[in-house]
């Protein structure tokens, strides 16, 4: 009986192994779902309690134009005990804020069970002139 040499098998298996090592992608993605709300739209949603959360590069946060820390803002929103459809948090970062910072803030809000979050956009014509 002819004996099959193992060396070619190992060659093939090694090639398969290298293929799978290269083709496999372990990278996992996360996601954040949110609404976009224009300034005009957020004002018109008068049936909901609107929390306008603004922040700038110096880490100065404000809720409805009153300066306070993010922790205090979260407390205020949570203390109102509103149902998810009774409020809307509009996050409005200043122009120079990087996306990572914005997402960190949104992530903080979401991890504190504040779900109804919208990203505020300035709805004017200047925005389109690029």
């Amino acid at each position: 009986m002819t004996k099959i040499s193992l060396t070619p098998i190992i060659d093939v298996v090694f090639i398969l192994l290298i293929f799978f090592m290269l083709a496999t992608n372990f990278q996992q993605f996360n996601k954040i779902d949110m609404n976009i709300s224009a300034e005009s739209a957020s004002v018109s949603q008068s049936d909901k309690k609107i929390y306008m959360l603004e922040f700038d590069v110096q880490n100065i946060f404000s809720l409805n134009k009153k300066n306070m820390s993010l922790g205090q803002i979260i407390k205020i929103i949570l203390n109102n005990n509103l149902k998810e459809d009774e409020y809307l948090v509009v996050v409005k970062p200043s122009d120079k804020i990087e996306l990572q910072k914005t997402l960190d803030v949104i992530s903080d809000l979401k991890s504190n069970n504040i779900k109804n979050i919208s990203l505020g956009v300035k709805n004017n014509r200047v925005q389109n002139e690029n």
Partner: protein
Amino acid sequence: MKIKTRKLKNNADDNLLPLVNIIFLLLIFFMMVGIIERKKDLYDINLATVKLEQYKDQNKTILFIKKNGSVIIDDEAIITKNLQRTLESKNIKGDIIIAADSTLTSLKLNKVLTNLHNSKIDYITLITLKE
């Protein structure tokens, strides 16, 4: 006549068996565990990182925003001012997935979002890396 008896050689292949076993195990591991998918071409975009919900592949349009604010849809670079027209021509409605650079400023993101809002896209999914 003297008959030569061939000595049975010590088969060197025998020593290879444990090696083959390990390689096969590694092979099975990578086949089973690995999610083989077309690696997302992120166009040099460094995604932000968050701890929230895990993203699962969806059959939705992905809009890539580079750190200079330029937009890519379906492998096609688009000028921001033409974005609304492009979205309409591609018949992209409803929600959309956005892969934006973590260093993208709010001002540049705002321009894209305004165009989306004007195209009646008010619900977005931002994909990020897992923290």
